């Protein structure tokens, strides 16, 4: 097992402007781990509370959302450089992104970005899992790694789309990816629960086959289950018992002092909600015997 660069940092919450003051207070009270969406910050002008928390010892992982590493095009150098700059500005030991594509098509050489034949998804979209797609993804990840100053962790997304050509299941695909590139795995248990609710499969059984020896840290987030049984990973609702139970299983497997756990709450959020939800995550982690 490869030790996570952020192992032992406990439970934290993602940095969001709406709760910046609360997260600074949490840091002063002992929170040691957070994550910031890289596209939302300017490296030379970090938000005041974030800079204060960094000075207070908080470890912050820059989390990219627009690289689209599973796309057909190589990762954009400017986006990679921005992610690298945020990593340097925050002193991060690690950066993270997703196994997804976010735009499709390829600009002709010399075409400016606004007029390129590129379609923006506006969201993380799962790619087909085939040997050819894996080869392109591995190439893209290696290109990213060569331009980043710290290791890269890649996250499983919440998928609702099943490609007919897919021939490799997600645990096998992610294991092959980590083995081929040496990247870390950002395990999102809410995403795994969401994917299984939409596309079928046993989340716990799939989880046990994931590349758990490469987990850098773990995401949890809230959501809701609609009447058809599909779980929506909204980051705007409270954590569900199903996701907390899955988190408990992860901590049992990885150990309470292993990869840290990060709460993602993006909208419908205030200080009281973050405090309550962090307490729920901490209780789920603490329930597991050391």
């Amino acid at each position: 097992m490869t030790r996570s660069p952020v192992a032992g940092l406990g439970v934290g919450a993602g940095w969001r402007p709406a709760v910046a003051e609360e997260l600074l207070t949490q840091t002063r009270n002992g929170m040691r781990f957070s994550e910031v969406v890289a596209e939302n910050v300017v490296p030379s002008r970090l938000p005041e509370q974030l800079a204060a928390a960094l000075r207070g010892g908080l470890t912050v992982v820059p989390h990219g959302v627009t690289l689209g590493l599973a796309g057909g095009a190589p990762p954009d150098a400017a986006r990679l450089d921005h992610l690298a700059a945020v990593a340097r500005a925050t002193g991060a030991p690690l950066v993270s992104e997703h196994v997804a594509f976010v735009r499709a098509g390829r600009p002709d050489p010399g075409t400016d970005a606004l007029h390129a034949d590129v379609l923006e998804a506006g969201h993380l979209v799962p790619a087909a899992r085939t040997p050819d797609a894996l080869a392109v993804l591995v190439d893209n990840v290696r290109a990213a790694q060569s331009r980043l100053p710290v290791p890269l962790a890649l996250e499983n997304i919440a998928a609702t789309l099943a490609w007919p050509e897919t021939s490799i299941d997600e645990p096998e695909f992610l294991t092959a990816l980590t083995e081929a590139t040496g990247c870390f795995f950002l395990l999102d248990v809410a995403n795994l629960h969401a994917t299984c609710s939409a596309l079928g499969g046993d989340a716990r059984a799939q989880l046990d086959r994931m590349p758990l020896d490469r987990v850098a840290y773990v995401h949890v987030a809230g959501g809701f289950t609609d009447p058809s049984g599909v779980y929506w990973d909204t980051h705007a609702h409270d954590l569900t018992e199903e996701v907390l139970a899955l988190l408990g299983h992860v901590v049992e497997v990885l150990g309470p002092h292993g990869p840290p756990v990060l709460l993602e709450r993006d909208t419908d959020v205030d200080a009281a909600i973050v405090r309550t939800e962090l307490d729920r995550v901490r209780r789920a982690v603490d329930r597991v015997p050391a």
Partner: protein
Amino acid sequence: MSREELAQRQQDVLLALLRGDVPAGFDQRSAALTTRVLRTKRRSEAFAAAPQLRGVPDVADRFDTWAGAHPRHGCAHDDVVDFLVADDGPLPEPLASIRSVERVYRRVRTIGRDRRPRHRPWVVALGDRVWHVGPRTPRRRVDPVRSGVPDAAGKNS
């Protein structure tokens, strides 16, 4: 499959999903769920960029219908303005004035009405220039953002 073929395949599938079509060979339920995800995400970002849209009756359905036929080309602000220009439904101020002015700038109309405080009331396209004419309307107690479209809120990951 080469890198180029993969890019083309992803583009074809994404285009169909954004339109609300089921790409050939895909399960209908899976495609419909994904279209819902993509449309909800796009609409939520647009409404975060222009919160005034949230109170407009039927606007979510109008936006989704428009979005299905018009892939997003820029940021969420651009998306809002593109939608406003194309939408013919009722809008409150300042959105109605933004739509009217932008239609003139894009030469969809040659004349537009701007009812925002401190703006000249008429906007006219003449040749390659656009003129704002007439006396400025009086300043109201609340001074809206000049563009009427405030900054975008954050995004999720």
